[in-house]
């Protein structure tokens, strides 16, 4: 489990995240939603150890602040919102970098084939020889996801669950690839890993998330299952616009229809 207790982050004297309690369990997808500037990415960066925070963050019960980079890297992989490359690497060379820590969880001999397998999973078969900088934004995003997948290929290693941190993993993807990527996240969770994803699409969130954390002005406005969290009142308050939440006849999944700006 990834647990944050009373997590606050201040940057340049301003509190961006204040007193957030957070928990992502193995086997589940935890989604963080909220309007722009509500502190979603900052919270994720605190949980992944990029930003100094007050409060406590633990991974599988171990205090994050006492972990070495290599130890944390064996337990979680992080997909940033955007990645800028400084040199002309091929797609394969980038994906291979996910193996740098050597804890992918496959047999040593299979390591070499892993980049191709990861690329196939993100629907980039045959892209290994292309240069990253020549790809479209959505393709580059998927290349980075393939790299992240290589790092924690086995969702459970040595009996310990591992985690995917995804900061807007589908932000520049078409609808088909949004579903492919979310299915990868779900599959990772079903096989025993944990997923934390920042998402903007509330319908996608309702479909895939087991638990939703709603951020609003740096604080946690709500957290719970999609059915508990997605209500007209809360969404209107947090996102400052009128929405209508309905429920699909089949199953129990809520959906959200925009009405108008406030």
């Amino acid at each position, binding site marked *: 489990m990834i647990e944050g207790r009373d997590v606050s982050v201040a940057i340049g004297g301003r509190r961006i995240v204040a007193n957030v309690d957070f928990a992502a369990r193995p086997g589940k997808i935890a989604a963080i939603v909220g309007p722009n500037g509500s502190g979603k990415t900052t919270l994720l*960066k605190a949980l*992944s*150890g*990029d930003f100094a925070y007050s409060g406590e963050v633990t991974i599988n019960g171990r205090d994050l602040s006492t972990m*070495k*980079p*290599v*130890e*944390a*890297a*064996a337990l*979680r*992989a*992080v997909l*940033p919102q955007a*990645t*800028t*490359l*400084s*040199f*002309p*690497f*091929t*797609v*394969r*060379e*980038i994906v291979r*970098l*996910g193996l*740098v*820590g050597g*804890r992918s969880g496959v047999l040593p001999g299979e390591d070499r*084939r892993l980049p*191709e*397998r990861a690329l*196939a999973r993100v629907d980039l*078969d*045959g892209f*290994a*020889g*292309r240069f990253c900088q020549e790809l479209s934004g959505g393709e580059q995003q998927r290349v980075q996801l393939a790299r992240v997948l290589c*790092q924690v290929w086995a969702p459970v290693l040595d009996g310990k669950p591992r985690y995917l941190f995804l900061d807007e993993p589908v932000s520049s993807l078409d609808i088909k690839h949004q579903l492919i990527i979310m299915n990868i996240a779900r599959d990772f969770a079903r096989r025993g890993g944990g997923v934390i994803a920042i998402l903007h699409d509330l319908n996608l969130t309702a479909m895939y998330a087991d638990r939703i954390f709603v951020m609003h002005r740096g604080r946690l406005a709500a957290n719970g299952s999609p059915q508990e969290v997605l209500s007209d009142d809360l969404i209107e308050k947090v996102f400052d616009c009128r929405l209508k939440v309905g429920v699909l006849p089949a199953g129990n999944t809520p959906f959200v229809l925009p009405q108008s700006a406030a």
Partner: protein
Amino acid sequence: MTDQSIAGAGGTLATAAEGDRSRRARIVILLLCVGLAAAVLLSLMSGASDASAISALRDGLFGAMPGDEALSARDRLIVYDIRLPRVILGVLIGASLAVSGAVMQGLFRNPLADPGLIGVSAGSSLGAVAVIVLGTTVLAPLSSALGALALPLAAFCGGLVTTLLLYQIATGQGRTSVATMLLAGIALAALAMALTGILIFMADDRQLRDLTFWQLGSLAGATWQKIGSVGPVIVLALAAMPFLARGLNALALGEATAGHLGIPVQRLKYTAIVGVSAAVGASVAVSGGIGFVGIVVPHLLRLLIGPDNRYLLPASALLGASLLLMADAVARTIVAPAELPIGIVTAIAGAPFFLWILLRKRGVIDL
């Protein structure tokens, strides 16, 4: 779904090496080894005198042939005490400059970072000039305590301070601003040169001659003693660099991502900075400022084998050494019997090359 994954597996089988440039890199490294060996032999054989490197080498290996002792004694002296130290120094310095360039470019995440360009060499020069000029007065205790090591050590400190300052100025929140880096480099270099100018102003005639000779950049005057004082520093720094290769590769994705991949980023950065300062400082201490090797060599190799530092660093060492030997050969022969400072040769070849890189990158990289 199963059909697709089977087709996918077949596809990956057929293209297993696609995008993998490591085989090509190994072949290039092998060729560069051969090239360096040829350059070394050529440098040993050519020179102002007609001394035969072949016979001297043969004598060294198998003993003198009866009948040509007199000749071979002179040849041996020329080959072993004049040409060989110069070749070894050229190899060490060429390798150290090229690898330092490659490491700096990885560290700053920019192909334009070069120790000569961004003021590191100027900082090293300041340290070295301080020892030459003040070695008999203010710094006398220091230079008598350290002996031959005082010069390389001072050059190292000068380079280290400059690099640390530069890194602090140019990097904030895990991002290096290229414009800031280049401009800060210009400012730091100007400052170092101004301070160097003050020292030169204070120097006496004998020191001035030493300084001029040294500042133009030259491998002339290579001795076994010089190799003894800076060789270990360069070899040590070069030996440490390959351990940085994987970390520098990860750093290409940004500092935060490198950390997520398990790289101890802070340690990597400081090791790289200290290593580069040591290698550049030692090189500057013996040969003055030799520019552009650090930018030309890694750039050419990236075009050839890609930016993977596991191959780029050793290949840079080999090509840097070969190119510097060739530049030295030009410097020795083009105005023979006089000698051109090698820094002039590398600048004449390297500056247009640098402009060419800029033109190619125009619009691609964002200053």
